[in-house]
Protein backbone atom coordinates (compact mmCIF):
# COMPACT_ATOMS: atom_id res chain seq x y z
CA UNK A 1 0.00 0.00 0.00
CA UNK A 2 2.96 2.35 0.49
CA UNK A 3 3.57 2.17 -3.25
CA UNK A 4 -0.05 2.13 -4.35
CA UNK A 5 -0.78 5.28 -2.35
CA UNK A 6 2.46 6.77 -3.74
CA UNK A 7 1.23 6.21 -7.31
CA UNK A 8 -2.12 7.80 -6.43
CA UNK A 9 -0.43 10.77 -4.77
CA UNK A 10 1.62 11.75 -7.84
CA UNK A 11 -1.34 13.19 -9.82
CA UNK A 12 -3.29 14.16 -6.68
CA UNK A 13 -0.54 16.34 -5.18
CA UNK A 14 0.28 17.96 -8.53
CA UNK A 15 -3.41 18.81 -8.97
CA UNK A 16 -3.58 20.11 -5.40
CA UNK A 17 -0.59 22.44 -5.77
CA UNK A 18 -1.98 23.89 -9.01
CA UNK A 19 -5.43 24.30 -7.40
CA UNK A 20 -4.00 26.03 -4.32
CA UNK A 21 -1.99 28.45 -6.48
CA UNK A 22 -5.31 29.28 -8.16
CA UNK A 23 -6.76 30.04 -4.70
CA UNK A 24 -4.00 32.44 -3.62
CA UNK A 25 -5.64 35.59 -2.28
CA UNK A 26 -9.14 34.09 -2.41
CA UNK A 27 -11.64 34.93 0.35
CA UNK A 28 -13.49 32.36 2.46
CA UNK A 29 -16.55 32.29 0.24
CA UNK A 30 -14.50 31.53 -2.87
CA UNK A 31 -12.67 28.75 -1.04
CA UNK A 32 -15.93 27.26 0.24
CA UNK A 33 -17.47 27.36 -3.24
CA UNK A 34 -14.40 25.68 -4.68
CA UNK A 35 -14.26 22.96 -2.01
CA UNK A 36 -17.99 22.36 -2.41
CA UNK A 37 -17.83 21.62 -6.14
CA UNK A 38 -17.98 17.88 -6.92
CA UNK A 39 -14.62 17.40 -8.66
CA UNK A 40 -12.43 19.28 -6.14
CA UNK A 41 -14.40 17.69 -3.27
CA UNK A 42 -13.85 14.15 -4.57
CA UNK A 43 -10.18 14.75 -5.36
CA UNK A 44 -9.63 16.30 -1.92
CA UNK A 45 -11.19 13.28 -0.20
CA UNK A 46 -8.93 10.98 -2.23
CA UNK A 47 -5.93 13.20 -1.43
CA UNK A 48 -6.70 13.05 2.31
CA UNK A 49 -7.14 9.27 2.33
CA UNK A 50 -4.04 8.55 0.23
CA UNK A 51 -1.90 11.10 2.15
CA UNK A 52 -2.74 9.91 5.64
CA UNK A 53 -2.48 6.24 4.66
CA UNK A 54 0.93 6.88 3.05
CA UNK A 55 1.94 9.02 6.04
CA UNK A 56 1.07 6.37 8.65
CA UNK A 57 3.05 3.71 6.76
CA UNK A 58 6.01 6.06 6.23
CA UNK A 59 6.18 7.24 9.84
CA UNK A 60 5.90 3.62 11.00
CA UNK A 61 9.09 2.76 9.09
CA UNK A 62 10.87 5.76 10.62
CA UNK A 63 9.81 4.71 14.13
CA UNK A 64 10.78 1.08 13.56
CA UNK A 65 14.25 2.25 12.47
CA UNK A 66 14.97 4.67 15.30
CA UNK A 67 12.98 3.53 18.35
CA UNK A 68 14.55 0.47 19.88
CA UNK A 69 12.39 -0.16 22.94
CA UNK A 70 9.65 -2.61 21.99
CA UNK A 71 6.98 -1.01 24.14
CA UNK A 72 7.71 2.54 22.97
CA UNK A 73 7.82 1.33 19.38
CA UNK A 74 4.44 -0.37 19.67
CA UNK A 75 2.90 2.59 21.47
CA UNK A 76 4.15 5.11 18.91
CA UNK A 77 3.06 3.05 15.93
CA UNK A 78 -0.43 2.65 17.40
CA UNK A 79 -0.60 6.37 18.27
CA UNK A 80 0.42 7.36 14.73
CA UNK A 81 -2.08 4.99 13.15
CA UNK A 82 -4.90 6.39 15.28
CA UNK A 83 -3.86 10.03 14.78
CA UNK A 84 -3.63 9.61 11.00
CA UNK A 85 -7.06 8.06 10.97
CA UNK A 86 -8.45 10.86 13.14
CA UNK A 87 -6.91 13.62 10.98
CA UNK A 88 -8.22 12.03 7.80
CA UNK A 89 -11.72 11.81 9.30
CA UNK A 90 -11.53 15.43 10.51
CA UNK A 91 -10.49 16.65 7.06
CA UNK A 92 -13.16 14.66 5.25
CA UNK A 93 -15.84 15.71 7.72
CA UNK A 94 -14.90 19.41 7.36
CA UNK A 95 -14.97 19.04 3.60
CA UNK A 96 -18.40 17.37 3.62
CA UNK A 97 -19.71 20.11 5.92
CA UNK A 98 -18.69 22.68 3.32
CA UNK A 99 -19.83 20.64 0.32
CA UNK A 100 -23.26 19.93 1.80
CA UNK A 101 -23.71 23.55 2.78
CA UNK A 102 -24.08 22.98 6.50
CA UNK A 103 -21.34 25.44 7.48
CA UNK A 104 -22.21 27.28 10.68
Amino acid sequence: MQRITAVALVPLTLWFVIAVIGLVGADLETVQNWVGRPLPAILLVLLLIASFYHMSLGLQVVIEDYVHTELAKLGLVIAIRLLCFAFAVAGIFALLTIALGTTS
Partner: protein
Amino acid sequence: MRSADRPLSPHLQIYRWQLTSVLSILHRAAGVVLSAGAILLVWWLVAAASGAEAYEGVEDFLGSWLGLLLLFGWTVALFYHLCNGIRHLVWDTGHALDLRSVYVGGWVVVGATGVLTFVAWVAGISRWVS
Protein backbone atom coordinates in the same frame (compact mmCIF):
# COMPACT_ATOMS: atom_id res chain seq x y z
CA MET B 1 21.15 -11.56 23.93
CA ARG B 2 20.52 -8.05 25.22
CA SER B 3 20.48 -5.48 22.46
CA ALA B 4 23.55 -3.71 23.93
CA ASP B 5 25.67 -6.86 23.42
CA ARG B 6 25.06 -7.03 19.73
CA PRO B 7 27.94 -6.14 17.39
CA LEU B 8 27.58 -2.61 16.06
CA SER B 9 27.87 -1.53 12.45
CA PRO B 10 30.19 1.45 11.85
CA HIS B 11 28.64 4.73 12.94
CA LEU B 12 27.36 7.23 10.43
CA GLN B 13 30.23 9.68 11.01
CA ILE B 14 32.68 7.13 9.55
CA TYR B 15 31.28 7.54 6.06
CA ARG B 16 32.04 10.31 3.58
CA TRP B 17 29.04 12.41 2.56
CA GLN B 18 27.77 11.36 -0.84
CA LEU B 19 24.81 12.27 -3.00
CA THR B 20 23.10 8.89 -2.66
CA SER B 21 23.01 8.80 1.13
CA VAL B 22 22.17 12.50 1.49
CA LEU B 23 19.21 12.18 -0.89
CA SER B 24 18.03 9.08 0.92
CA ILE B 25 18.09 10.88 4.28
CA LEU B 26 16.39 13.92 2.74
CA HIS B 27 13.60 11.73 1.36
CA ARG B 28 12.81 10.61 4.87
CA ALA B 29 13.13 14.11 6.33
CA ALA B 30 10.86 15.51 3.61
CA GLY B 31 8.31 12.82 4.43
CA VAL B 32 8.27 13.93 8.06
CA VAL B 33 7.90 17.58 7.00
CA LEU B 34 5.01 16.62 4.72
CA SER B 35 3.29 14.92 7.66
CA ALA B 36 3.15 18.33 9.33
CA GLY B 37 1.91 19.77 6.03
CA ALA B 38 -0.92 17.23 5.90
CA ILE B 39 -2.05 18.37 9.34
CA LEU B 40 -1.92 21.97 8.10
CA LEU B 41 -4.22 20.96 5.22
CA VAL B 42 -6.74 19.50 7.68
CA TRP B 43 -6.52 22.65 9.83
CA TRP B 44 -7.25 24.76 6.72
CA LEU B 45 -10.31 22.64 5.80
CA VAL B 46 -11.66 22.58 9.37
CA ALA B 47 -11.25 26.36 9.59
CA ALA B 48 -12.98 26.87 6.24
CA ALA B 49 -15.86 24.75 7.54
CA SER B 50 -16.01 26.57 10.88
CA GLY B 51 -16.61 30.07 9.53
CA ALA B 52 -15.05 33.49 9.05
CA GLU B 53 -13.32 33.88 12.41
CA ALA B 54 -11.48 30.54 12.31
CA TYR B 55 -10.55 31.01 8.67
CA GLU B 56 -9.10 34.44 9.39
CA GLY B 57 -6.83 32.81 11.96
CA VAL B 58 -5.41 30.43 9.34
CA GLU B 59 -5.05 33.24 6.80
CA ASP B 60 -3.20 35.44 9.30
CA PHE B 61 -0.86 32.62 10.23
CA LEU B 62 -0.10 31.56 6.65
CA GLY B 63 0.39 35.18 5.60
CA SER B 64 2.91 35.83 8.39
CA TRP B 65 6.66 35.41 7.84
CA LEU B 66 6.65 32.16 9.78
CA GLY B 67 3.64 30.90 7.82
CA LEU B 68 5.19 31.79 4.46
CA LEU B 69 8.47 30.18 5.51
CA LEU B 70 6.62 27.00 6.48
CA LEU B 71 4.71 27.05 3.19
CA PHE B 72 7.97 27.45 1.28
CA GLY B 73 9.59 24.59 3.19
CA TRP B 74 6.49 22.51 2.61
CA THR B 75 6.65 23.18 -1.16
CA VAL B 76 10.32 22.19 -1.35
CA ALA B 77 9.67 19.03 0.69
CA LEU B 78 6.63 18.16 -1.43
CA PHE B 79 8.38 18.50 -4.78
CA TYR B 80 11.49 16.72 -3.54
CA HIS B 81 9.57 13.81 -2.01
CA LEU B 82 7.38 13.62 -5.15
CA CYS B 83 10.32 13.55 -7.60
CA ASN B 84 12.43 11.23 -5.47
CA GLY B 85 9.37 9.06 -4.85
CA ILE B 86 9.01 8.61 -8.61
CA ARG B 87 12.72 7.67 -8.67
CA HIS B 88 11.96 5.03 -6.03
CA LEU B 89 9.00 3.72 -8.05
CA VAL B 90 11.28 3.36 -11.09
CA TRP B 91 13.78 1.42 -8.95
CA ASP B 92 10.92 -0.82 -7.78
CA THR B 93 10.43 -1.93 -11.39
CA GLY B 94 14.10 -2.99 -11.45
CA HIS B 95 15.27 -0.19 -13.73
CA ALA B 96 18.00 2.46 -13.38
CA LEU B 97 19.77 0.63 -10.56
CA ASP B 98 23.32 0.92 -11.89
CA LEU B 99 25.62 3.45 -10.23
CA ARG B 100 25.58 5.96 -13.10
CA SER B 101 21.77 6.00 -13.36
CA VAL B 102 21.46 6.39 -9.61
CA TYR B 103 23.66 9.52 -9.70
CA VAL B 104 22.11 10.98 -12.86
CA GLY B 105 18.63 10.35 -11.45
CA GLY B 106 19.65 11.94 -8.16
CA TRP B 107 20.80 15.17 -9.84
CA VAL B 108 17.68 15.21 -12.04
CA VAL B 109 15.57 15.03 -8.88
CA VAL B 110 17.52 17.90 -7.27
CA GLY B 111 17.14 20.01 -10.44
CA ALA B 112 13.45 19.20 -10.88
CA THR B 113 12.77 20.10 -7.23
CA GLY B 114 14.38 23.50 -7.73
CA VAL B 115 12.57 24.22 -11.00
CA LEU B 116 9.14 23.09 -9.72
CA THR B 117 9.50 25.07 -6.48
CA PHE B 118 10.55 28.16 -8.44
CA VAL B 119 7.68 27.85 -10.94
CA ALA B 120 5.10 27.27 -8.19
CA TRP B 121 6.20 30.34 -6.20
CA VAL B 122 6.47 32.60 -9.22
CA ALA B 123 2.94 31.52 -10.20
CA GLY B 124 1.67 32.00 -6.65
CA ILE B 125 3.29 35.41 -6.16
CA SER B 126 2.15 36.73 -9.55
CA ARG B 127 -1.34 35.56 -8.65
CA TRP B 128 -1.08 37.37 -5.31
CA VAL B 129 0.13 40.61 -6.91
CA SER B 130 -2.55 40.71 -9.62
